[in-house]
């Protein structure tokens, strides 16, 4: 590896970590799309900042652009508050308008601005190492590494200082205001940090990748755990992993680095989405099927308790009367028999003592309708699940 390669990966890693931290909270607070809105609407801020500073990496420009980001949030909330349109519509109205203003500002001043929309939107990580920070003539490394590094440090400091407050205000707004932690300050604090991160990262990785790096690792982690601290660690881990893997994929294909980092994230998300242990698609589908069978089983057992006459308890009757398909009846019968709830003699089904006890408890559950009861019961009675 050459030194620019190491530097590019280093920048990518720093950006990934810096994005993952606010990203987790955005996802948990159901505000993931705000990051998308901010990443687009900072464009006019960047353009105006560029007119003033003439330097894409100046801290003043980052500040100006970050303010535009916060303004976006304020505007969205103001429109929401009027009650004229729904929240999502408000977001969808504000950022294209601001983005359009940015595009037009660039187009109108195309001759004297060395800035183009593609660069802002897509970024180019490969060029990041060429913009060096020179301090009294000494090469201190790439500028964007310094910028993102400082943003990351600030984010981390704020995170450690306000972790408790952030946690409370994220999960229970009422409790947090009762405890004297203003949810509004937390909200705008988070928005400001996200905004600064987006702006700092845009020129290295582009506005869209920022969104991907914020939302995707957090979403992946959310599918794997329900613990906030673990979720943060996992999302940082996946962010870093995709940054490195993405870089080498881009190297291989000779394509955009930010695009390939996003693609790696996409692949990871697809895998986790399908195979995550408890919350993945496959396990959800499996669980749903299991529950369907178990509900059928309970229905079947109730039917048995209600009818003592043999004609109602005949196996063939199941198909006709309860209208189940053959396979389904077979599954339910097998499950019941395996769990010793029924016994079958001469194709006539009868409840065992255990089956009777279970049915009585199930009936009680149906009448009280408390969810937590049934799962315990299933654990107590089932040797085999559906």
């Amino acid at each position, binding site marked *: 590896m050459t030194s620019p390669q190491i530097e590019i990966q280093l920048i990518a890693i720093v950006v990934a970590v810096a994005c993952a931290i606010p990203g987790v909270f955005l996802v948990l607070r159901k505000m993931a799309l705000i990051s998308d809105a901010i990443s687009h609407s900072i464009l006019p801020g960047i353009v105006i900042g560029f007119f003033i500073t003439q330097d894409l990496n100046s801290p003043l420009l980052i500040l100006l652009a970050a303010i535009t980001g916060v303004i976006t949030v304020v505007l969205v909330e103001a429109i929401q508050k009027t009650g004229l349109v729904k929240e999502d519509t408000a977001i969808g*109205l504000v950022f294209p308008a601001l983005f359009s203003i940015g595009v037009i500002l660039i*187009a109108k001043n195309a001759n004297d601005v060395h800035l183009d929309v593609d660069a802002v939107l897509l970024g180019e990580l490969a060029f990041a190492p060429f913009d060096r920070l020179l301090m009294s003539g000494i090469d201190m490394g790439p500028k964007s590494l310094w910028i993102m590094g400082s943003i990351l440090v600030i984010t981390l400091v704020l995170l450690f200082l306000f972790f408790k407050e952030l946690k409370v205000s994220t999960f229970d707004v009422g409790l947090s205001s009762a405890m004297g932690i203003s949810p509004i300050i937390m909200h705008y604090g988070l928005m400001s940090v996200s905004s600064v991160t987006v702006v700092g990262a845009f020129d290295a990785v582009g506005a869209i990748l920022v969104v991907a790096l914020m939302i995707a690792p957090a979403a992946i982690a959310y599918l794997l755990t329900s613990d906030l601290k673990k979720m943060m660690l996992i999302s940082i881990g996946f962010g870093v992993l995709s940054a490195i893997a993405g870089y080498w994929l881009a190297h291989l294909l000779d394509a955009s680095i930010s*695009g390939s980092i996003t693609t790696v994230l996409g692949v990871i998300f697809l895998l986790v989405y399908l195979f995550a242990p408890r919350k993945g698609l496959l396990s959800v589908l499996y669980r749903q099927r299991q529950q369907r069978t178990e509900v059928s089983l309970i229905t079947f057992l109730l039917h048995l308790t209600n009818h003592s006459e043999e004609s109602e308890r005949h196996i063939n009757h199941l198909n006709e009367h309860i209208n189940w398909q053959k396979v389904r009846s077979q599954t339910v019968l097998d499950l019941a028999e395996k769990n010793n709830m029924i016994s079958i003699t001469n194709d006539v089904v009868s409840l065992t003592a255990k089956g009777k006890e279970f049915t009585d408890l199930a009936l009680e559950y149906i009448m009280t309708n408390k969810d937590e009861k049934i799962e315990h019961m299933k654990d107590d009675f089932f040797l085999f699940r559906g």
Partner: protein
Amino acid sequence: MNIYEYFELLFTDYTLRTITLGTAVLGAICGMLGSFAVLRKQSLLGDAISHAALPGIALAFLITGAKDSNILLIGALVSGLIGTFWIRGIITKTHLKTDTALGLILSLFFGFGMLLLTFIQKQPNANQAGLDKYLFGQAATLLEKDVFLMMIVTGICLVILLLFWKEFKILLFDADYTKTLGFNTRFIDILITFFIVLAIVLGLQTVGVILMSAMLLAPAAAARQWTNRLSTMVVLAAIFGAFSGVFGTAISASQNNLSTGPVIVLVAAVFVLFSFIFSPGRGLLFREIRFRKNRRDLELQKTLQFMYGIAQTHENISHPHAIKILNNFQGFTRKTLQKLEEKNWITLSGQQWAMTTVGYKEAKNLYNQQEQDD
């Protein structure tokens, strides 16, 4: 070229006519379908779909090697639909919320699309230039056949909309009820989503991936402010959309260096802003006026009530009292007294006031709502 010249040229210049017609038709179809998206709280779905269409365009190009806009649009349609259904899968099957699902699909698909686009750019194929017009859109590249395609799609969409009007409407407002009535909600849902995706894909060439969502939302959000009827809203949104298209094209054609997409979006945003402020039923201006009027009425009634309390203690209700004794009641001014007199509730003479029988009756019934005041 200024705006007037533009409108003169509109009838003679081929390119200008094509573009204007194209953006107008696009605005109309987006407005129409956008109404449904907005009312179904799927406003940002448009944003996600338009981004999700990008890899489809790139893949279609990679596979066919041709830059025929129809093939690219089919690619965009397919990947847009995949994105849409994946979003739905994420929302229904996992505990991730709508916003996360939308943001995920949007950024992941777009990133993948960018990877493919940059990959294509490095290929030794001279044909690849111009694919990036789908990012920001270039209305100027619209050909007559593109516009023709748009019109056909709009026509089909209109027919479907009329055929399934009842179903769309009921699904929109009460999905559970629709199900109990025995409609195939899944089919209706997929149908309307398909057309929304189609409209978005059609617009990609003109306004581009990034601004497409605004084309869908803005006319509908503006139309929503003027009416509570779905049919009126759809028609109004189509009109707003078409006008944003035409005005946007006119403005961008009359200036140098102005790309059409952003201008159209800004024009649509102006429509929205105007509607937010000036719509008579819901607009902010009239709402504020109504608030003020209600507040004034309330003050007036409070004053009357206070007077009623005083007048009640006298046998003759029209016994004159000094205005001074109202002083420990804060909410009155000289003007409100005059107003009360105008309404014939009290009579004023010099520094004294006296209640009339009308005013007395009014005050008596003020809080028990027996006699409705209009």
